[in-house]
């Protein structure tokens, strides 16, 4: 065999899972770096998008990626995906990695970002719509930063741009959203059970 021949690694179960969730074939990546060059969040990442693709190609231990800040600071802005010359959906790969991290309860490298998303969904699951005032308050308490963004409050309240009362939780919409949450949870439990 020629020394230059690229022998595609068979892909670890972790890589296969990420490929399955994202619908992307990581070996297609030619490591050109265009995704990283345009990524607005790259400065806050421990692995750049190109490095994430490389780690998946090489089948590096899953802990490295699941425990990375990258999968949490990604803004899902799609810049990488629309620029990739190989038409890989890198944002979709980031999303898949985050899904796996959440499913496997891997500790998040960016605790506050994970907390934000949890609280966001907690609120939606109750009232069907986002309550910005409530989310901000809960985030400040739970992240122990009582004064975060508080300087904006007077103007927001005064100009009536920040409703203090939550959306009506007994509306038809809120009820239907609660049912969606319950049913999705049940469906996921069932499918996890059938895999085990």
């Amino acid at each position: 065999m020629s020394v230059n021949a690229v022998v595609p690694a068979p892909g670890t179960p972790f890589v296969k899972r990420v490929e399955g969730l994202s619908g992307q074939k990581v070996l297609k990546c030619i490591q050109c770096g265009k995704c990283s060059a345009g990524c607005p969040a790259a400065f806050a990442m421990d692995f750049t998008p190109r490095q994430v693709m490389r780690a998946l190609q090489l089948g590096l231990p899953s802990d490295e990626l699941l425990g990375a800040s990258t999968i949490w600071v990604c803004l899902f802005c799609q810049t990488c995906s629309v620029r990739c010359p190989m038409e890989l959906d890198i944002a979709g790969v980031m999303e898949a990695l985050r899904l796996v991290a959440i499913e496997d309860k891997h500790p998040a490298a960016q605790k506050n970002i994970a907390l934000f998303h949890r609280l966001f969904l907690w609120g939606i699951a109750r009232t069907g719509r986002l309550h910005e005032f409530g989310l901000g308050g809960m985030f400040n308490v739970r992240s122990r930063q009582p004064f975060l963004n508080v300087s904006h409050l007077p103007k927001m309240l005064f100009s009536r741009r920040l409703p203090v009362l939550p959306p009506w939780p007994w509306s038809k919409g809120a009820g239907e959203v609660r049912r969606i949450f319950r049913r999705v949870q049940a469906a996921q439990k069932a499918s996890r059970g059938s895999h085990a």
Partner: protein
Amino acid sequence: MPKYAYYPGCAVHASARDYAVSAQLVCQALGIELQEIKDWTCCGASSAHPTSHLLGLSLAARNLRLAEEMGLTLTSPCPACTSRLAGARHELRDPAALAEVNDILGKDFGNTVGVEHLLQVLSKGDRALPVKRPLGGLKVAPYYGCLIVRPQKVLGFDHEENPQSLDRLLSAVGAEVVPWGFKTECCGAGMPMARKDMVHKLSGRILAAARSAGAEAVAVACPLCHSNLDMHQGDMKPNPKMPVLYFTQLMGLALGFSAKELLLDTHFTDALALLRGKGLA
């Protein structure tokens, strides 16, 4: 009269009330009817989908189904919602995914509804704008943000790298559009609570780029962009002091509405002094 199923989304409904009000006024003036979807709920935003695909799709599909029932194309002023809803519509072309979501909803959703951002609706065709008060060469940097035009294969609107629709609308109402390179750079999106530092950095460089391109104001089409660029400006060092207006507010001024009607007095970075100087407020 063109009629749309209107999905404001949580932010436009509350903290971006100025966007909602100006959008309604402009649409009224142009004879476009926005009929709000009764009982709309959160589209899932950027929290649901990367937590559980099925949850993200189902939350979006609930709203798509309501628009489908109305028999109208859905429009939203929020690019994040539009992207979530259009993304779900795209994924649900797969019959297996659609069946799974219908199971969750307990409804018969056919996934036949169109989804368009408000900018797309307003920039359609060559609509004559009844301009009463041209913006008199106000120098504006048109800022699209990341999600209005990305990805093309889902949205099919304008251009991913150098979009033009907002440029054209602003020129049509008498603004001078400055050329610049940050039209579709990301502002930091939903990070102002968890990673304020990222928002300051990303939004700060957008405002600096607008300034060095010679802009007197930035036009936006997204409630998250507005909050990051306007509200968080005061915390940036140095303070860029750059007025940030919704494109519907700029259009509204040209169509003859007052700054007060357009809630231009609710912004953090004062836009009124600039507008007064130009005889627009």
